[in-house]
Structure formats: structure tokens, C-alpha cells
């Protein structure tokens, strides 16, 4: 059974969201989903970029003005 982990990065500036996401994903299993909540526009660029580079499935959802959820499915 795959699990879903929420990571609260609201109010955090670069590069904190990216490092937090890296650490969180490290401890997860293949098939698990990490949901990063972000409200820093430059993290909105580097978190999905990094995750796609690693080969994970990435989706970005705009939750509110200036607030996003980066949804990362760990594939390997």
C-alpha cells in the first residue's frame, strides 16, 4: 500500500523547500507520493525541476494565489 506524505514548506524561502523535499523523499518507498506545499515562486521552479531530473512523476497544482502543491510520485 503506497502512502501519501504532506510536507509543509509554506513560508520557507529557497533553498529550504528543495532540501526538505530531497530529505523527505529519501525516506520514502517507490510508489509513495510526496505533496510539497510551497508559497515561494522560485521553489516552484527548482523543486519540480529537480524531481523531474531524478525521473519521478511530477505534477504542480495551483492551490491559491501564490500557493502551490508540487506532487511527486517516487518511481525509483
Amino acid at each position: 500500500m503506497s502512502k501519501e506524505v504532506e510536507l509543509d514548506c509554506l513560508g520557507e524561502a529557497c533553498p529550504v523547500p528543495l532540501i526538505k523535499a530531497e530529505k523527505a523523499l529519501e525516506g520514502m518507498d517507490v510508489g509513495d507520493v510526496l505533496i510539497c506545499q510551497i508559497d515561494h515562486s522560485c521553489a516552484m521552479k527548482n523543486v519540480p525541476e529537480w524531481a523531474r531530473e531524478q525521473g519521478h512523476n511530477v505534477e504542480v497544482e495551483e492551490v491559491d494565489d501564490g500557493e502551490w502543491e508540487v506532487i511527486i510520485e517516487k518511481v525509483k
Partner: protein
Amino acid sequence: MKIFDKIKTDPYYKVWLKDAWPYVTGAILLSVFQIVSLASAGTPWGVSGTLADWGAWLYQLVGGSVDKWYYFASDAAQAKLAAGPLKDPGTFRNLGLIAGALFAALIASGFKFKKIKTWRQVAAAVLGGLLMGYGARIAFGCNIGALFSGIASMSLSGWVYAVFLFLGAIVGSKLLVKYFM
């Protein structure tokens, strides 16, 4: 409103105003506009030097005097301060920077008042701001005036700045991971 729903789904709105531009586009535009700025204002683009001038003007506003300060001792600096902020290109550049950033965030509907998460964040921001401001003044420039404009003016000091900026960033990231993770 209907019109906003229409704009929201418009592909041109998404590419031009909503999504972040590629780094290369930003680099080219920065280069072009720093040339425009140099040609029109007569001095290379800088940001933090103007902040020091703002500080001096504010200090004068409450009755202070910076006449004897080493930093403002040159005739050029004194003339600039005497002319006032309305005659200062740097003042308008900085105001334009703030207004432009606000406009870009608003039009991408990305504007948000963020909560302060921890007091440690506040302390780090204040301490970081003070160190950056102090460093920029004793280096006679920040990453814009000393690095960007320095390298654009074929100045060796810009490259020296770049090397130590990189070293500082390594130390900074180590501290960040240690105290903020």
C-alpha cells in the same frame, strides 16, 4: 468575472505572464537593460549603493548629518546627496524594481502575504540583511554593482567577487542546513 476566466486559460497569458521565463530570457533582458541603464544614467547599474544613499537622506530628514562620514566624503557623493533623491537615477531604478516585481507577481496572480513561520527566520533575515548590507558597502557593490556590472565593465574585481561569492555560498548553505533543517 467571465473575462478573467477567459484570460486564465489563454495560452499566451500562461507563457508570457503566468509561468516563469527561462533563465536565458532573463539573462538576455538583464544584459540589454543594464546597457540601456548605463547609457541613460551614465553610471553602471547598482542597487545597494542607492540603499545607502536612502539611509543618508532619511538620516538628514531627522536632522542628522553625514558630511563627516568617510563613505560620503567624496565631492561626487556630497553632490549626489545635495541634489536629493528626485535627481538620482538609482532611486528611480530601485523603485522601478520594486514596482515591477509587484506588478509581475500580481498579474501572475502569485501575490501573497506570507506568514512568519518561526522567530528564528526573523533573526536570520535581520542578521543576513545586516551582513549583506555591510559587506556590499565595504566591497563597494553588491551582486549587481560589483559582480554583474563589474564583469560587464571588463573589471577583474567582478571575477574576484564571483569566486568569493561562490565560496560564501558554500559556507552559507552549510550553515543553513545545520540551523534550519
